[in-house]
């Protein structure tokens, strides 16, 4: 469990994080979203005691990070895969980390195996591809078999197989009752990964809710209808807002439930070829809610 | 248009690209997919004349890259956003690129504006975030207003707004009739972006088709049906020879039928439908199915 209370960080005059309060619960994967410059990294650094809050505090399992005894056994984190000495071997990197928290050396080989780096354990980390470096970072996070895990853009540099692997892996960690807190910009990926969301913008909390709720609140559900008697159906829908989808002649209906359209069709003997309720995407919901807080607005 | 014909690249004993032939058509966004080490980057480098093929050739609008007159006006590419001198300003970087291909200087300001970097144009590129470097790289690719564009992991480091922007941007370029080839590992993103796919594994072509075909070919297509008369509908569908599976109260998953067929059966029996949704597999599922044995580092799946 991670609890932030009134967490604030100023850099000179810039307010990076502004009175931020949230809770990350165990047993679920919680996504941490926000535009560039929203304060996500700063927040994660404060969770790990790397940056000192200007005000407020953040507790991990009820304690400040600095008060944790052998913290790697409580919190594992992957913030930046590049935080490895390039001339040190993968194994040596994990060995000193393990030693610092009295984690047995055999665990080093275990986690290397887990992330699929056993074969390159003795190669210098500087020669690793981004994907391999990412796996090494994940291995480091897992070293202490921690209850709380923080990942910042974990799929960065991974190939499709690695992306699928880390997603399933995070789900499994959460199922084991661990707290999994993941920051990412890849919303299509996060929609599949995170059950809960914490969304911030300009250092302030925008939403803390389940992913489903977040999408439902910010987007409108539509129903895609295809039928050989589309004009008849359109007439029946009367005042409902409909629009045609030019690609395949489907009708997109807003504000009427699929079940209701189905009843109408059946009552009037209209054949349906498709009656497909469409959810908004996490991306649409996110854009809707964070409109005001983006850093470099590109335009065309 | 990009045409690879029998393209092959060997590094010593390693075959990075192996007799690869494919065509990238104009007017569409084509995704270039493959596991790590499949040879995607090598192929892109050969397209740009950075690496020399061991055999075969790759042509851009009918010519090898080296034969292009003022290549930046034909091909724009973003391969690695870090290929910028860190102490040079964004603007200076684009200015020398423009100069090298006789592109007017006002185009520099235009592309900076297009990618939203006008305000930081005079700052040194070394201080840029990955997202800003990425935008600078994209600006460079656009400089010569080229007909063919290559992007390698273009959303790398971009935030959600940037990702949405680049997706729409690439689709816009394709809609203008340009050839757009995008390599990426983010399949959920590519499913939204690419109309066509070229998929390679271990240097060989695995598939070239539209995205829809690719997914349909390698995943099972089912129809999800919700109805207050699910039992009756189920029985009728089984009679027609379709495979039906229950998935909770009043929900059927039908295999072997199109949603059109299921809808006709329901209408024939006068049955009310609450939902009739064709279910497609994901691009990820299809990709895993087809490239299963050509990945480089397998992580252990158990814990």
């Amino acid at each position, binding site marked *: 469990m991670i609890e932030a209370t009134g967490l604030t960080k100023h850099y000179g005059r810039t307010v990076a994080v502004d009175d931020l309060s949230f809770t990350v619960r165990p047993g679920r994967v919680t996504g941490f979203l926000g535009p560039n410059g929203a304060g996500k990294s700063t927040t994660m650094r404060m969770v790990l005691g790397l940056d000192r809050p200007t005000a407020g505090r953040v507790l991990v399992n009820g304690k400040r990070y600095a008060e944790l005894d052998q*913290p790697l056994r409580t919190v594992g984190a992957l913030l930046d895969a590049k*935080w490895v000495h390039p001339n040190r071997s993968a194994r040596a990197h994990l060995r000193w980390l393990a030693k610092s928290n009295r984690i047995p050396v055999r665990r080093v080989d275990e986690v290397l195996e887990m992330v699929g780096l056993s074969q390159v354990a003795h190669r210098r980390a500087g020669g690793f591809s981004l994907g391999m470096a990412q796996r090494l970072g994940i291995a480091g996070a897992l070293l202490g078999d921690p209850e709380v895990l923080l990942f910042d853009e974990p799929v960065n540099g991974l190939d499709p197989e690695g992306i699928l692997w880390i997603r399933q892996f995070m789900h499994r960690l959460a199922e084991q009752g661990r707290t999994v807190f993941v920051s990412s910009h890849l919303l299509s990926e996060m929609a599949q990964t995170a059950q809960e969301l914490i969304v911030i913008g300009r250092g302030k909390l925008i939403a803390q809710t389940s992913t489903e709720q977040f999408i439902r609140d910010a987007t409108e559900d539509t129903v895609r209808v295809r039928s050989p008697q589309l004009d008849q159906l359109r007439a029946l829908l009367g005042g409902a807002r409909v629009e045609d989808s030019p690609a395949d002649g489907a009708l997109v209906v807003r504000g009427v439930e699929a079940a209701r359209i189905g009843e109408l069709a059946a009552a009037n003997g209209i054949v349906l070829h498709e009656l497909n309720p469409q959810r908004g995407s996490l991306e649409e919901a996110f854009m809707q809610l964070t409109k005001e807080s983006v850093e470099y607005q590109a335009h065309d | 248009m990009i045409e690879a014909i029998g393209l092959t690249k060997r590094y010593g004993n390693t075959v990075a690209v192996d007799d690869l032939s494919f065509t990238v058509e104009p007017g569409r966004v084509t995704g270039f997919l493959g596991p790590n080490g499949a040879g995607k980057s090598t192929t892109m480098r050969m397209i740009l004349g950075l690496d020399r093929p061991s055999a075969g050739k790759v042509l851009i609008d009918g010519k090898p890259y080296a034969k292009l007159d003022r290549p930046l006006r034909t091909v724009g590419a973003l391969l690695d956003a870090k290929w910028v001198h860190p102490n040079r300003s964004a603007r200076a970087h684009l200015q020398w690129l423009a100069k090298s291909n006789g592109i007017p200087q006002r185009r520099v300001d235009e592309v900076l504006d297009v990618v939203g970097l006008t305000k930081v144009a005079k700052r040194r590129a070394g201080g840029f975030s990955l997202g800003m470097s990425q935008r600078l790289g994209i600006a460079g690719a656009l400089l010569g207003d080229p007909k063919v564009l290559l992007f390698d992991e273009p959303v790398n480091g971009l935030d959600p707004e940037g990702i949405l922007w680049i997706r729409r941007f690439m689709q816009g370029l394709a809609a203008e009739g340009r050839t757009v080839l995008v390599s990426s590992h983010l399949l959920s993103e590519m499913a939204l972006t690419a109309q066509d796919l070229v998929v390679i594994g271990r240097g060989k072509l695995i598939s070239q088709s539209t995205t829809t075909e690719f997914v349909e070919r390698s995943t099972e297509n089912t129809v999800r049906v919700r109805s207050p008369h699910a039992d009756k509908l189920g029985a009728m569908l089984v009679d027609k020879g379709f495979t039906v599976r229950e998935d909770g109260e009043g929900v059927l998953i039908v295999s072997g039928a199109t949603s059109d067929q299921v809808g006709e059966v329901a209408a024939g029996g006068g049955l009310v439908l609450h939902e009739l949704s064709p279910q497609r597999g994901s691009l990820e599922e299809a990709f895993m199915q087809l490239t299963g044995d050509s990945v480089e580092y397998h992580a252990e799946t158990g814990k």
Partner: protein
Amino acid sequence: MTLLAVERIKLFSTRSPWWCMLLALGLTVGITAIIAGNWNEGPMPVLGAVFAHTFGLYVVMVMAALAVTTEYRFGTIKATFQAVPDRISPMVAKAAVVTALAALVGLAAGFGSWGLSWLLAGDTSQLALESANDWRHVAGVGLVYGAGALLALGVGALVRQTAGAVSIILVFALVLESVVGLIPNIGDDIQKWMPFTVASKFIMGDPDQGGMPADAGPPTVGALSPWGSFGYFVAIAVAMFVISLVVVKRRDA
């Protein structure tokens, strides 16, 4: 003890510390060999064998500064502070390991130079280690290297950048301390208290009668006795290191 092992793993799992140590040793011993081989002003004194110790000192200090600046350069400092969030203990452990290592290199450089002089010098009648002063000249190199490493580590932790830390150390030691002596009137008085000048006094100062031919080797200046000089140098090193600890503890990682 655990943290000492952590720092030992960190230091020896990359190559640059090995290169620095070899270079420190090679440079000091090598230059001494040239001096010894060309010594022709009568018997070679013990002091003659340690003239070159400053070369190794600079290299060892660069190594010490690197031990901390590379952690900042490559971001491993974050992993270090994640693993041990009190920050002080890993820094102290690092100082202990680096200082001890530097001292060992210093001892090897001191005795190595002396041993080689014994082999190469024409007249070795004055080279035997017979007095406490003789021992100080040679073994003192180890002590100065150790203290110098601590000083450099402090500078490195404060500056965080390799180039910055190395330039500060080298410019201070090689340029500033000599230039200061050129300031009219007060220059000499200031120079007397400059750390590297004082450290040099510890090793080179107050030789036995006849231990040093006139106007050979660098002059030694300073108001303190040799051991007082060492105390002064150590005090500066410790002070610098303690300041760096306070800053590291307060600063965002």
